[in-house]
């Protein structure tokens, strides 16, 4: 049943078109679909419009590689391992990248609206901030809110008041996020596409449900009959999933609950080396372009390091990795 969903990373990335609006699973440096991201760079995707609750190392790679035209998010960085998104900052300043700032609540509500099939949701978060300053509407400034792209809303915000409970103070409407594609990395997917996520689920459900197409990379493809033995533990029904790929370690260097730790050294090295475009290009040459496949990348990382990152089966994280100073 639905065997057609299973494919290689290369095939899955061919489902992504230049100019697509894209979102991702995960949170900052956790459970990002890195194997797909590397392949997107190899296939030289262009003019992507990233829309995410928050971004992270994966976004920095796509932006550094010149795949991205627009980034709508509330945050980009690498947590402890790199305090800003240096590639995004550089390309923003050079005018190569449009950055649209929303707050965290704005973004999660945008995805919730997309998932719920409504054009907007109301919120009270972040009143009184420059996020709401009409002068700082980046997509508007760039003439992209003219309605010609059906996925870009005609306004950044709408301001209303409550007529039900007589509450004073503005209500903000944030527009639904309506990406073409969600690329997700999860722990398990069934052969038919049923998705199971272990640990914190971040904004994965909303991201996958808001998108028109869903590509799921999993640590393990498991028998559908097994994953269905506990349907309350599953997150996304198979009929919402278009493509499934099995790729162990596919979120490296980001972390994957129950499977492996964030590779902080790797991310810090990326951050330190890619603060200039020349630095990024050299890094990408070494870690993406000269490496033909994700398996080759893992071989380059090496068993010893990967095994150190491997999670303890009770704690769900590595107790052997060296953290701290």
């Amino acid at each position, binding site marked *: 049943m639905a065997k057609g969903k299973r494919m290689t990373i290369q095939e899955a990335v061919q489902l992504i078109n230049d100019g697509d609006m894209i979102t991702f699973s995960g*949170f*900052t*440096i*956790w459970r990002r679909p890195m194997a797909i991201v590397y392949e997107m760079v190899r296939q030289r995707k262009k003019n992507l419009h990233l829309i995410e*609750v*928050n971004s992270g190392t994966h976004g920095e790679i796509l932006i550094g590689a010149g795949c991205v035209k627009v980034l709508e*998010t*509330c*945050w*980009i960085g690498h*947590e*402890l391992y790199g305090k*800003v*998104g240096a590639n995004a*900052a550089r390309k*923003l*300043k050079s005018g190569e990248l449009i*950055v649209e*700032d*929303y*707050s*965290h*609540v*704005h973004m*999660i509500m945008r995805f919730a609206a997309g998932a719920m099939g409504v054009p907007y949701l109301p*919120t*009270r*978060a*972040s*009143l*009184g*901030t*420059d*996020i709401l*300053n*009409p002068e*700082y509407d*980046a997509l508007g400034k760039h003439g992209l809110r003219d309605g010609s792209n059906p996925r870009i809303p005609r306004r950044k915000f709408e*301001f209303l008041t409550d007529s039900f409970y007589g*509450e*004073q*103070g*503005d209500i903000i409407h944030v527009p639904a996020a309506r990406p073409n594609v969600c690329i997700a990395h999860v722990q398990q997917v069934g052969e038919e596409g049923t998705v199971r996520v272990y*640990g*914190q*689920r*971040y*904004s*994965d*459900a*909303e991201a996958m449900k808001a998108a028109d197409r869903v590509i799921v990379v999993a640590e393990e493809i498991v028998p559908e009959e097994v994953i269905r033995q506990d349907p309350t533990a599953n997150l996304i029904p198979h009929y919402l999933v278009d493509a499934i790929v099995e790729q162990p370690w596919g979120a490296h260097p980001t972390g994957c*609950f129950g499977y492996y730790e*964030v590779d*902080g050294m790797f991310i810090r090295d990326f951050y330190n080396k890619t603060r200039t475009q020349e630095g990024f290009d050299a890094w990408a040459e070494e870690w993406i372009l000269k490496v033909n496949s994700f398996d080759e990348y893992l071989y380059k990382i090496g068993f010893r390091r990967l095994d150190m990152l491997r999670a303890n089966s009770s*704690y*769900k*994280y590595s107790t052997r990795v060296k*953290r*701290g*100073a």
Partner: protein
Amino acid sequence: MRNNHSPAKPGEYKLIELLAVAGAREIRDGEVVFAGTGLPMLAVTLAQKTTAPRASIIYEAGSMDGRPVHLPSSVGDARCEYRASVSSGLLDVFSQLQRGVVDLAFLGGAEIDRYGNVNTTSIGGDYFHPAVRLTGSGGNPDINSLARRTVFIMVQEKRRFKEQVDYVTSPGWRVKKWPGGEWVTRQEAFGSVFRGGPVAVITSMAVFRFDEETGEMYLDTVHPGVTIEDVKNNVGFDLDVSRCRGETPPPTYHELYLLRNVIDPEGLFLGN
């Protein structure tokens, strides 16, 4: 050291330990605290092991009242979820925040003004071509908007304590009401859903609080070894120091024991 509740002397503790202790003292028992990575985790965990055993902590990636045995390195970390009451996702925890569940929030910032407006977005140049582009807001303004009290933890530098921040990422006590942009009080901006706002700024030199009437920042305590003059020299606006209560209470030996041996023995945030 383990059960010695007398205050440690200067030189016996690091600045970060003082900040963690100062943060912990802002927490009341039974409160629901929304906290980010780093110092806030130290502060909350310390409070849970001392004066606020029934405080619960929400991390924005989706864990509620986790009881980590190893300090998390990020709110997305699997360690956050260890023995949590619930682990779910962003929509759940931010909805709870908006619903009014959160008593206290710990946040950081790159710049702050006298009304507690905080910038974590961009500095210098103009917004579209900044000299320095930072991470963006994250959950900072949301959490600060919707919790009852917010405590900011920051580095004290003149260039960070400004008359006016370059971009208001997170709202203080006087803010612009958009889309018009007129300055109003925080109470006016939030109307019926006003719940509170920044109550303290804990920095590398001092603790600041805000006047209840004017919303202006004033000096509350200076850290041991820091003078009021030092603080004034590191604030870019005219600071009210008339209400300074003296020194920030230093950590006790017991608190230091907990921080170093129980809470962050790996030196993840405390260093070695």
